[in-house]
């Protein structure tokens, strides 16, 4: 499948559903009533440790709650500052926000092999249809792999668990530079040797045959026949 196919809606999704009990979540919005009650409002003030501060809608209150959005040189109350400690404080908050985001973004989809295995494969996006087919080919050839389809960055904590559970993980990507693999290495501090890049970048869509062939070849290389068996 090409990204173009996705863009042209050449694939079906399940019918969309809507829960009528669902309410819109506008996040942490401070109202005029809350401001009048004396709540401490700072546009970049992290009140509960998740790195996501309250905001106000423009025009909320005549004298409280307004702020001027600009660059990164400002303190917890959106006041301009060039102090290093203030800057570092805001950067630390952004790190906390990034951590919070990890468990809020769409979770990766995991599917395990028919048999327990120490090998895994990670992929994403338009590689998915080819991967579904490739897994069938690999299973038929006796290669069993657990698979994880990544759907968001920053990575959900289950990505780290998946890496820990497998000795080798293939990372299948349609780019020359193994960009997802680099992200995984950087984010998880993992030994790069354990992440085997399977790269496809000749301009055509990746195929199940390519994936199964590349992974199958690598698996075959890993199979070392003991010398005594060769001699006998």
């Amino acid at each position, binding site marked *: 499948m090409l990204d173009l196919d996705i863009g042209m809606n050449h694939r079906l999704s399940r019918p969309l559903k809507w*829960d009528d009990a669902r309410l819109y979540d506008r996040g942490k919005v401070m109202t005029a009533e809350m401001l009048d009650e004396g709540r401490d409002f700072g546009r970049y003030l992290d009140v509960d440790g998740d790195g996501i501060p309250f905001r106000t809608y423009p*025009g909320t209150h005549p004298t409280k709650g307004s*702020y001027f*959005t600009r660059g990164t040189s400002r303190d917890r109350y959106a006041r301009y500052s060039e102090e290093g400690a203030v800057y570092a404080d805001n950067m630390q908050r952004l790190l906390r926000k990034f951590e919070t985001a990890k468990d809020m973004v769409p979770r990766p989809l995991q599917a395990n092999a028919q048999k327990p295995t120490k090998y895994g494969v990670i992929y994403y996006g338009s590689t998915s249809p080819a991967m579904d087919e490739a897994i069938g080919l690999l299973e038929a050839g006796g290669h069993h792999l657990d698979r994880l389809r990544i759907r968001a960055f920053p990575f959900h904590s289950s990505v780290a668990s998946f890496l820990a559970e497998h000795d080798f993980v293939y990372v299948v990507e349609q780019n020359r530079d193994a960009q997802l693999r680099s992200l995984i290495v950087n984010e998880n501090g993992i030994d790069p040797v354990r992440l085997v890049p399977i790269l496809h970048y000749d301009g055509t869509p990746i195929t199940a045959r390519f994936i199964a062939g590349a992974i199958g070849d690598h698996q075959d290389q890993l199979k070392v026949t003991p010398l005594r068996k060769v001699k006998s």
Partner: protein
Amino acid sequence: MTYIAKPKFQHPGLPKNDLGYTHRDYEGKVSTLCAGCGHDSITASIIEACFHLSIEPHRVAKISGIGCSSKTPDYFLGNSHGFNSVHGRMPSVLTGANLANRDLIYLGVSGDGDSASIGFGQFAHSIRRGVNMTYIVENNGVYGLTKGQFSATADRGSKSKKGVMNTDNAIDLVAIALQLGATFVARSFSGDKTQLVPLIEAAIRHKGAAFIDVISPCVAFNNHAGSTKSFDYVREHNDAVNRLDVITGREPITVDYAPGSVQIVEQHDGTRLALRKLDADYEAHDRLAAMAFLQKHTAKGQVVTGLLYVDPEAEDLHAHLDTVDTPLNQLDEKALCPGSAALDKFNASLR
């Protein structure tokens, strides 16, 4: 300068407007621009216009791009929400904010680099869509923050501080705004507050895309002999076509105008603009004539200022899109979501 807090004490006898605010209530932080910068005069004019109109400061959203001009929203209306956006992106941020909440007053502040170069497309589309806003360009013809390179509004033949001649043709934002269908177009000069303040007031009360190009000399890099954006040059070549008085409310006009010298224009919200003609040939209701007049006088090296065009029957983007009167950001699930039954019906229609 940024660490200096502005003292809050004020003279008890300061004049108050209808809301009981003094002009101090419309101020912002201490300016960090160069002493004598034309932009600070525009800031003062915005403060005065908002004070005169008795606008509640928190009902204004002030939005800017990047540059010396775009820093100024920090220096006025300290109780307003402000957004110092990305370079040249003020118009799209403003358009989005306006669509989300049509009840606020939108004040876009930009510069010649911000609007005539990197944000030229954004400027054009916000004008042609008729976003209800006051779009002020603080036009000094140079990039002041990066030591005075010519911007796209610098006139051909004008000289830089180092004596280099500009060989590129200038973009005249007023001419472009007229061509794009702006329904309120004015040009003024930061050194002429008497002209500028009423123009800002009228623009704020205008329902539609109101554009004001304010020539604002850069005292550090573009205020020398040979510059066409210097205080001296603009004063010598200023060709004001009219003077404006803004009359709010329904009270009768008490100013004594000589018969035939004044044209009264009534805007949508009842604001009346009293246009005193300084140039008998100038007609501020005729877009084509305004464009021709502008071209003719620009070719002669004159800087045409005043209210150059106004359409009192203007419509804004919300009217074109037929949006509801309630600001979109106040609509809840009941008003917005058609629910699962409607979704099921839609799904069925695709099978």
